[in-house]
């Protein structure tokens, strides 16, 4: 197991109290696995991603453990976590377009960043160039300022920088969201390429778009309102989802070939519960068409079939 997360709880501190953005997450990601992390806005998926690398206020560590390659990650300690960052865990942030210092040439930025982490930039230069080729960027970008690149180019630069030290775990946070479909496809394929070239051992791809995950992920973890709803192999999640939320979510996605006159799709009525004071029991209960009495108790996140976990009483019953 490359990554093992056990009972992780991370809250957001606000003046009104703690927002329980991530309320107990237990899962693991295997060697060479690309795990997709899906869910709607505010479900806690970005909180989960970020807390694995940089947990800082207003985020608050409440409990849980994280093991990477068998070693515990001190994610609650901002200082002690520093040596693990980049070398062990790395991230492609959501705002990749703004992630580069505007007043440094990209080559120099990379050099200074590597030297600061005690890595010789000279030794890595050939590899850096090889990877720029891989993401279809000319070596000239090293002599340019970020402002001279397009948004997409900046994002690919960030992708190369983030993976340059071959981290064990890469977190890709909404990397494809703002992109056009054609670019989206290439970028998604590049992520897979990073894994195939062993630049990263395993990867968590955070997105709200399940169809992207279907293309590139080995497994998908669906979150709802700060809790894990379902995790399983991609094919199983898309074809045979067991959690009612996953089922409704997937059936609400329009596909090419579907027309409203022929097959009318429908969304999920209602909206997610407030995470400031979340309801007891299953958090999807209010919107769930098959909810019953037992859902007042919290359903366990348990294995149904090998590698397929669901938090739903109906699925277990």
């Amino acid at each position: 197991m490359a990554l093992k997360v056990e009972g992780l709880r991370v809250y957001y501190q606000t003046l009104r109290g703690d927002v329980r953005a991530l309320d107990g997450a237990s899962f693991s990601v295997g060697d060479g696995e690309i795990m997709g992390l899906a869910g709607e806005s505010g479900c806690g998926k970005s909180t989960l991603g970020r807390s694995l690398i940089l947990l800082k206020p207003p985020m608050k560590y409440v409990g849980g453990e994280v093991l990477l390659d068998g070693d515990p990650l001190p994610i609650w300690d901002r200082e002690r976590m520093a040596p693990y960052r980049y070398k062990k865990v790395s991230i492609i942030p959501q705002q990749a377009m703004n992630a580069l210092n505007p007043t440094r040439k990209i080559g120099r930025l990379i050099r200074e960043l590597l030297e600061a982490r005690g890595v010789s930039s000279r030794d890595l230069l050939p590899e850096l160039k090889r990877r720029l080729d891989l993401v279809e960027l000319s070596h000239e970008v090293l002599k340019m300022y970020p402002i001279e690149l397009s948004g997409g180019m900046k994002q690919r630069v960030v992708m190369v920088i983030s993976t340059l030290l071959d981290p064990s775990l890469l977190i890709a946070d909404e990397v494809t969201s703002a992109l056009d479909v054609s670019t989206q496809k290439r970028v998604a394929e590049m992520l897979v390429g990073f894994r195939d070239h062993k630049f990263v051992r395993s990867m968590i791809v955070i997105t709200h778009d399940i169809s992207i995950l279907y293309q590139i992920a080995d497994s998908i973890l669906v979150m709802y309102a700060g809790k894990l709803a379902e995790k399983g192999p991609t094919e199983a999640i898309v074809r045979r989802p067991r959690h009612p939320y996953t089922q409704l979510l997937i059936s609400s996605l329009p596909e090419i070939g579907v027309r409203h006159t022929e097959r009318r799709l429908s969304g999920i009525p209602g909206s997610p519960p407030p995470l400031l004071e979340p309801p007891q029991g299953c958090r999807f209960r209010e919107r769930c068409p098959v909810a019953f009495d037992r859902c007042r108790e919290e359903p366990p996140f348990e294995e149904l079939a090998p590698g397929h976990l669901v938090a739903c009483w109906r699925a277990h019953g």
Partner: protein
Amino acid sequence: MKNEFLYFALRNRKLRLGLSVVLFFLLLTFVGPLLTDYDPWGYIGAPAQPPSAEHWFGTTTFGQDVFSQFVHGLGPAFLVGALGGGLATLIGTAIGFVAGYRGGWIDEILNMLTNIVIVIPTFAVLLIIAAYLEVRSFFIEAVFIGCTAWPWTARAVRAQTLSLRAREFVDLARISGMRASKIVAFEVAPNMMSYLVMVFILQFGGAILNAATLDFIGLGPTTGISLGLMMNYAVLWGALQLGMWWWFVPPGLAIALIVGALYITNVGLDEVFNPKLREK
């Protein structure tokens, strides 16, 4: 919304501190003259006396009561601040709105004007105008200050208007058939109220400092008393050499405290208005 604002406003330490200091001096402006019977210009006592029960802030080289001068000088400071600062805010806001909302060549011209007035040292212009005016009043001083201090406000308001204008609610107002002036007044401006309040506070403080500088070099109002004028006389008539600290400390300290408190109030307001800056 409103209650939340009030809640944070009352809890904010900087805001409370800043406002109390400003209010204290404002109160003193009104109450102060009642506490003293002395004519600020009258030669009423022994010269160069240190503070005493009779003369709370001592007397000048000529035997004038410093406390009386001080409390009478506070009023003009607030007056020039409110009037000059208000005028600067008004001009700057108007130019910023027009330039930012209309865009095009109007924007180009107003922008050019703003840039020119920004590089002209305000003080030098005030200097030459004041020098040629034989009779000067607080009102004229405030108007001149207001007419030269607006550029940074215009620039900031223009930038904000530009960004608000690009928001979709402005488009929605336009396809509701609303006229441009109405959109600025009812859609754009209300979003900037908090910002404009802060601009006014800064302009207020700036106008007080500007006026004090002019008064100090003898280009202030030709009649009346002001804090800047007190410092002018103190320096001219040897308060320094004679060690008469009670003469020059109060006026400068009052200005520094009032303006400083205004700045602190501003930081406090900024924290109240922008949740991101609130103390954690």
